[in-house]
């Protein structure tokens, strides 16, 4: 219960603080709130609390929800540090903070719902502020375009999701996941409407997590949005979407998943191929990272595909390591492009190792982690997925995963090479700042390497 209260009140507190002219404390309030969110996740661990149980069982904070909420709050915590230097103007800053906080609230709902109504509301609470955030650089044409594309296509996808929910309701007569599950198990086979509904829900989720062929918006939106917002979308929004998806497909829709695993596998394969292959030709580093993000979505979809047999902790591990790595990359990109006068091309990274060695180091680690080079945490994450997919017997998919990660390595290396290439003209400025943040992120990545995997064992899931 604490979680939903904290997350929903956080945005309101921010707005209140803004009204009370307490803008200086806003940042502290946000951090405090997120820390409280993370803390309450730990405190409630294992309680399986249902908030307002007597008023309909809409949410359940089981370990799954708490774990995802924890990851979301930690990543958000770090993300807010990233915003500190980017949201320059004080007036807009609180607005954006509030929007991000609302979105986080939606994320919490999305990972903890136990009713399709909440799923839909969660998706929208998560998305609507992000539409605004994507367009938040009002003067920038690309930001406008990104915002509009995201909003519009998101709305269409919501319609599909809704239609799916409606059909499932039609088949089962309830929005409550437990009741639906009971009905389905009672009948023994899936009603036709249920399957159609599941497919439409899948389409809606596929859009949110940006897997092919529903990924088209992602590169454009990621590229056009302000870098900070891109980082938000690539990490928190994605984590929440995957949480919601995994929750649905590991429980209620698992019969559908079992029957149509091939669909998931095809989508995974297509995503990996398309995203990685296109990424090789990108020169804009933000767009490149966007495609990289899409390809990671493919991997995580592979995890969702195995939802019935695979423990969610591996997905969480993946989401977490991927989020931290992306956050590192985007933070660096943000700094670099600021110092390069908005240049986001891969060439902007040239000579970064001289201009800001710590940043170069952190980005290198994060890119290698995303590429899945052992023993970095990204490798572990991918390994968990691959080994599960292999256990599921989809050998061809494993081979695609492996071949495309070589392709992925290619474009990550392009960035790395740029950083380690000396500059021809000495005119470029040093990139300063973000040192502490980089240290922190790098430390987390490395710690995830040594203890993260062990934590999967130690924690009682």
């Amino acid at each position, binding site marked *: 219960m604490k979680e*939903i209260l904290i997350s*929903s009140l956080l*945005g*309101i507190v921010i*707005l209140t603080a803004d009204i009370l002219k307490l803008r200086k404390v806003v940042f502290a309030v946000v951090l405090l709130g997120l820390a409280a969110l993370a803390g309450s996740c730990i405190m409630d661990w294992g309680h399986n609390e249902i*908030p*307002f149980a007597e*008023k*309909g069982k*809409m*949410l359940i904070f089981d370990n799954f929800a708490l774990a995802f909420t924890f990851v979301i709050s930690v990543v958000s915590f770090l993300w807010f540090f990233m915003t500190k230097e980017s949201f320059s*103007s004080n*007036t*807009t800053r609180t*607005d*954006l903070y*509030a*929007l991000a906080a*609302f*979105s986080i*609230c*939606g994320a919490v*709902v999305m990972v903890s719902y136990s*009713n399709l*109504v*909440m799923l839909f*509301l969660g998706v*929208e*609470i998560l998305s*609507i*502020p992000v*539409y*605004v955030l994507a*367009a*938040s650089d*009002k*003067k920038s044409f690309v930001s406008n375009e990104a915002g509009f594309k995201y909003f519009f296509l998101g709305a269409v996808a919501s319609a599909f999701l809704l239609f799916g929910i409606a*059909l499932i309701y*039609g*088949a*089962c*007569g309830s929005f409550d996941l437990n009741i639906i599950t009971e*009905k389905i198990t009672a*009948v023994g086979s899936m*009603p*036709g*409407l*249920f*399957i*159609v509904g599941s497919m439409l829900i899948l389409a809606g989720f596929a859009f949110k997590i940006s897997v092919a062929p529903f990924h088209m918006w992602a590169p454009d939106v990621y590229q056009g949005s302000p870098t900070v917002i891109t980082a938000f979308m690539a990490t928190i929004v994605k984590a929440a979407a995957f949480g919601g998806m995994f929750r649905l497909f590991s429980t209620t829709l698992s019969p559908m998943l079992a029957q149509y695993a091939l669909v998931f596998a095809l989508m995974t394969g297509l995503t990996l191929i398309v995203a990685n292959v296109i990424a090789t030709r990108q020169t804009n580093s933000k767009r490149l990272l966007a495609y990289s993000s899409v390809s990671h979505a493919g991997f995580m979809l592979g995890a969702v595909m195995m939802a019935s047999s695979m423990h969610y902790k591996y997905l969480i591990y993946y989401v977490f390591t991927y989020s931290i790595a992306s956050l590192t990359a985007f933070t660096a990109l943000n700094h670099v492009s600021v110092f390069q006068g908005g240049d986001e091309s891969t060439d902007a990274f040239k000579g970064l190792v001289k201009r800001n060695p710590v940043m170069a180091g952190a980005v290198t680690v994060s890119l290698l982690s995303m590429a899945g080079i052992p023993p970095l945490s990204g490798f572990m994450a991918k390994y968990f997925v691959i080994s599960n997919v292999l256990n599921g017997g989809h050998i061809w998919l494993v081979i695609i995963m492996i071949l495309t990660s070589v392709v992925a390595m290619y474009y990550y290396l392009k960035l790395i090479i740029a950083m380690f290439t000396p500059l021809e003209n000495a005119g470029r400025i040093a990139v300063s700042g973000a040192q502490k943040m980089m240290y922190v992120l790098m430390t987390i990545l490395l710690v995830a390497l040594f203890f993260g995997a062990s934590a999967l064992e130690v924690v009682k899931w």
Partner: protein
Amino acid sequence: MLTNYAFWFLSFLAVFSALGMIFSRNPVFSVLSLIVTFFSIAGHYFLLNAQFLAAVHIIVYAGAIMVLFLYVIMMLNLNTLEEEKKSLFAKISAVATAGILMLVMVGAMVKADEITVVQQASNIDVGLTKNLGMALYNDFLLPFELSSVLFLGAMVGSVYLSKKELA
């Protein structure tokens, strides 16, 4: 029997006005067509014993949302005939895609028509305001409260996007 005819009448009205919305060149006409569609959908709600919903539907959609649209169209002065640039291929592919979508959806749902769980005798009172209110404030209290967060978010967002930068 009357309801039967009403169904078909409302359905055709909805479909035709929807098509009218799409194919009209004038945005204002589109808005008006859509309002007609909404009214016919509201009619369906009446037929389905969802009286309160029908009323809310007209108030919210026809009364608020569409007015907002109209307001924007007027403000942006879009009520002129505007030639949209699009290739023949784009038109054909759009029509074909949407057509196939409809066929597939109808096909999939017809194939899957049987609703296996037999429910109790239908409750005519379902659509009454009281029942809806009970549901909304008991079982759906939490989503009801959370939708305030949604509104707040949308509000802050709209304000943020619309306000002029101070500096």
